[in-house]
């Protein structure tokens, strides 16, 4: 009974907000508060430490994206030559279809090498991008130096690259690559058919007799035929001689790419033109690729 009355008095006295806390209250708050501070501040610094580690991953991601942007800028240099050459060739009377203009917008996926097999009859390179990342068979692969090879097998998380040293006219794995010469894209043409292992040179055949190709010209893929992208650097011309039947010339090309100790490669993703009725769909996807590139 007494306790009840005391309780009601206590509630009545404290219910309306007071100016100052009483001394015992202040004392209690201060003493417990100091112990709370001892626990709270170390706990907050530990949790900040872990959130910093979580942000590290963010920074790493940013780094990767910036690296991709830098690689993109390196590629623009080659694309620029094509744009300049194409501008000269355009005439007002030609009718450009939208999908033809956007066909040469390539997406370069950066991939890391995870294993190299140097077996001379069967050299392969494994990378850490697979079908889950959009890789399909027969995509071309380049390094910073030039064309490396094509993707031959794809599994969900890894893929296998067959390098250009396996170019063989009799092999079912690698089909011939059409090529032209930097600076003379409309006049020169050849087909990369074989790789001579003893001299370590790519053999380019089916060159016309009156072709203006010369020694030390830079060979690039021409993209005619829509299987391989255009504008990928291959190598330099070393020697041109008359071919087997005397009708065409044959050139040996010294490849740019060094196959040893590779770390990163770029897989070139093309936006394939299937047929004209799907032009709108391609417009959407190429717009998406443009936005992705700008975002990076």
């Amino acid at each position: 009974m007494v306790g009840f009355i005391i309780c009601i008095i206590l509630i009545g006295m404290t219910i309306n907000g007071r100016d100052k806390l009483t001394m015992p209250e202040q004392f209690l708050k201060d003493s417990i508060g100091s112990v709370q501070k001892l626990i709270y501040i170390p706990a907050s610094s530990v949790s900040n430490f872990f959130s910093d580690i979580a942000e590290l991953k963010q920074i790493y991601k940013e780094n990767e994206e910036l690296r991709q942007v830098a690689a993109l800028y390196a590629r623009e240099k080659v694309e620029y030559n094509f744009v300049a050459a194409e501008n000269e060739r355009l005439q007002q009377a030609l009718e450009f279809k939208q999908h033809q203009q956007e066909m040469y917008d390539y997406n370069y996926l950066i991939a890391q090498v995870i294993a190299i097999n140097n077996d001379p009859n069967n050299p392969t390179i494994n990378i850490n991008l697979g079908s889950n990342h959009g890789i399909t068979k027969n995509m071309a692969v380049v390094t910073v130096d030039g064309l490396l090879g094509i993707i031959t097998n794809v599994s969900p998380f890894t893929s296998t690259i067959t390098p250009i040293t396996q170019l063989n006219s009799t092999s079912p794995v690698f089909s011939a690559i059409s090529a032209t010469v930097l600076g003379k894209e409309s006049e020169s043409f050849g087909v990369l058919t074989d790789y001579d292992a003893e001299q370590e040179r790519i053999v380019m055949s089916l060159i016309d007799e009156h072709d203006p190709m010369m020694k030390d010209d830079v060979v690039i893929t021409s993209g005619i035929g829509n299987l391989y992208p255009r504008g990928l650097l291959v190598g330099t011309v070393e020697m041109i001689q008359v071919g087997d039947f005397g009708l065409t010339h044959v050139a040996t090309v010294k490849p740019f790419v060094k196959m040893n100790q590779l770390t990163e490669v770029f897989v070139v993703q093309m936006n394939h033109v299937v047929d004209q009725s799907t032009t709108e769909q391609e417009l959407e996807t190429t717009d998406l690729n443009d936005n992705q590139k700008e975002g990076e």
Partner: protein
Amino acid sequence: MNIHRIVLLMLAIFILEGSLMPWLIPSSLADRLIPHFNFVLIIFSALYSSRHYALGLGLGFGLLQDIMYYGNAIGIHFFFMGIIGYGVGILFERKRLNVLVVISIIGLAYLAYDCAVYGINYLFRLANGSFPWALITHILPSLFFQLIFAIIVFIPARKMFEKLVVTNYSDTSEENL
């Protein structure tokens, strides 16, 4: 050391061959020295434990190499690792051999293996270059590379594979009792 630990060890060596060795071999020699350390271990198992182990390990690791690095065809390394392992096992199973003989057997086996692989690739027109060029460029340098590895791991490998057979014998003798 039972067979499972040996398989795990060879698997670890396989992964290291693909990922670590390209960085250790100097890049001017990269396409001349090709590590096939699992093959050396398979020949060791043929010489010091039974030929069936050599056949099994050879088929298993040959298939693994073919699938992981599938470029042109599956089955070349698979077949030859198994057959040469089994052949060496039949000829030399559990004989008392000294070091020099073992090393020369490993050398001859590797030579046979690499020439056979080149021959099959030549048959299917997948081979690069002529046979004398291939011999000088990659078969013989890799042979020496493999022999150096064989000399380094000779004593541990022999102990490892001899224990494999001993445990089996002791198991069967206990069952007979």
